[in-house]
């Protein structure tokens, strides 16, 4: 009988317990084997790799040199800054949009609610590659739809992606407009589980919509908001496809995100050790951000 080498945590666990649980190991084995080879091993290997000078010419162990190098590299620091700007531009606006839509659709019939949920989710079904291709066309400075709308408003055309000042805000705007659909679905589901008489009682007491939102809706949605915040941060921190398709990190590195820089470092410049170190720093930042978000919102998401 094959067994996965799992370290027992309780001292009392005996070989007999392991034998008794054999069907459990068998059921988990097909996935866990793949998971170990193609996920756990790469994670560990990545940590090891981050301490190597690993390129076409050499594979030498250099301790923490890669980390020292990237933490004093202006481009890596700039990419971190860009990623922070992007993430903290997108995620709060997503949440705001999702909260607004959730509260607005709540009083309506089920069918209308479903219609809007589907409408907001639809762009999410379309891949980032496709959305990026569309927006590249929408942002086109000469013939693009957006500058056409600007001209209707009597405004001057803007070189949206061609200037370092406007490129990042343009990408954020696109992501906010197209995204947030799954957060809306999540929040609506959470809101539907709030007993209706909470709202009725508050209305009878004469509470205004804003007070109801602040004192009832928001606190009760907190776990879901936290979940969306953490997941949204993780997802947007890794933003890559739109950068690859739309700006290649430019102009003047103003849209170079960490994920894009890792891709360039590893697969264009073949500096695999350096890229691994970058990904480890990125991971560490995400862990810290996650902890801060949990602390800040105080309540725990139940698994």
């Amino acid at each position, binding site marked *: 009988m094959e067994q996965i080498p799992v370290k027992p945590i309780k001292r009392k666990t005996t070989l007999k317990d392991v034998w008794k649980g054999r069907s459990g190991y068998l*059921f988990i084995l097909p996935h866990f084997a793949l998971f170990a080879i193609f996920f756990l091993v790469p994670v560990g290997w990545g940590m090891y790799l981050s301490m190597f000078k690993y390129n076409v010419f050499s594979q030498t162990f250099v301790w923490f040199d890669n980390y020292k190098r990237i933490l004093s590299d202006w481009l890596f620091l700039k990419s971190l800054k860009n990623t922070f700007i992007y993430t903290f531009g997108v995620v709060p606006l997503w949440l705001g949009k999702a909260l607004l839509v959730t509260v607005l659709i709540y009083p309506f019939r089920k069918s209308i609610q479903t219609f809007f949920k589907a409408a907001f989710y*639809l762009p999410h079904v379309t891949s980032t590659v496709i959305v990026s291709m569309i927006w590249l066309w929408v942002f086109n400075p000469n013939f693009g739809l957006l500058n056409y709308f600007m001209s209707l408003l009597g405004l001057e055309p803007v070189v949206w992606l061609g200037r370092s000042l406007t490129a990042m805000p343009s990408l954020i705007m696109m992501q906010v407009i197209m995204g947030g659909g799954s957060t809306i679905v999540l929040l609506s589901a959470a809101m539907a589980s709030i007993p209706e008489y909470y709202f009725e009682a508050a209305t009878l007491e004469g509470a205004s919509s804003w007070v109801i939102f602040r004192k009832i809706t928001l606190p009760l949605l907190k776990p879901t908001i936290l979940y969306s915040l953490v997941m949204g941060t993780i997802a947007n921190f890794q933003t890559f496809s739109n950068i690859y398709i739309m700006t290649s990190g430019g102009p003047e590195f103003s849209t170079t995100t960490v994920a894009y820089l890792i891709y360039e470092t590893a697969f264009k410049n073949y500096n695999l050790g350096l890229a*691994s170190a970058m990904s480890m720093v990125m991971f560490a930042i995400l862990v810290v951000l996650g902890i801060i978000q949990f602390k800040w919102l105080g309540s725990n998401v139940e698994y």
Partner: protein
Amino acid sequence: MKAKTKTNIKKIISLVILAVLASLAFIPLYWMVATAFTQPSLTMKFPPDIIPKNPTLQNFKDLFERKIIFRWTLNSFIVAGTVTLAQIFVCAMAGYALAKKKFPGSKVIFSIYIASMMIPTQVTLVPLYILISKMGMVDTYQALILPAIAAPFGVFLMRQFMVSVPTEIIEAARIDGASEFKTFAKIIVPISKPAMAVLGIFTFMGQWNSFLWPLIVTNTSEMRTLQAGLSLLQEQVPMQYSYLMASATYSAIPMIIVFLAFQKYFLKGITVGAIK
């Protein structure tokens, strides 16, 4: 009477705001389809035609003349289809073990799965690429498929669903003498169909839309998936917007059909795991 008018006004304002927000996202999608039917020469003009004049199928004809696009489509179907079926199968088994089987280490394994879901793709990207190239699998279907089956989310999702399956049913089947696997196949699988549908749909969508990994692990144009192929088109003919929008429309359609057909599962499925 006055209060009623007030709620009605409120509802109308709500509807207007909702419609504006929804159309902001819808307009670019409309623009993709509209441009796809616009004559190539008419895209380079200002102001643009919001409704294409003399709509044409020329862009799609040009697209389908490039036979490689069918190969990319086939690749996408092969990869997304295989990963979806395999994930449903192995994740259901693993989820069942974690939810209903008692064995030493199960809690640790579950914690590892949860922690893994927080790890960004970039962490495994480089070592995984080296691993795949050492295994000699670069530019193969295996390279596109195997790491995707190993993704941890499905196990978490199935486990969350199966925890709520009453243990008595399983015990009753065992007492009746059903084997372990038979219990799984005859009791657990039928009960878990909704969760499997959700997992299947999300896996298919994730794989169909996946870009970074196919971009890295394929060298030849023949092995690209649709998304990675599209980026190639974008690089080759960056200014031919009507042609690019036709290719984007063509690639978006399968997922939009899947979404409209399984809308219920999409909207329900997002909440699994996040909300009790």
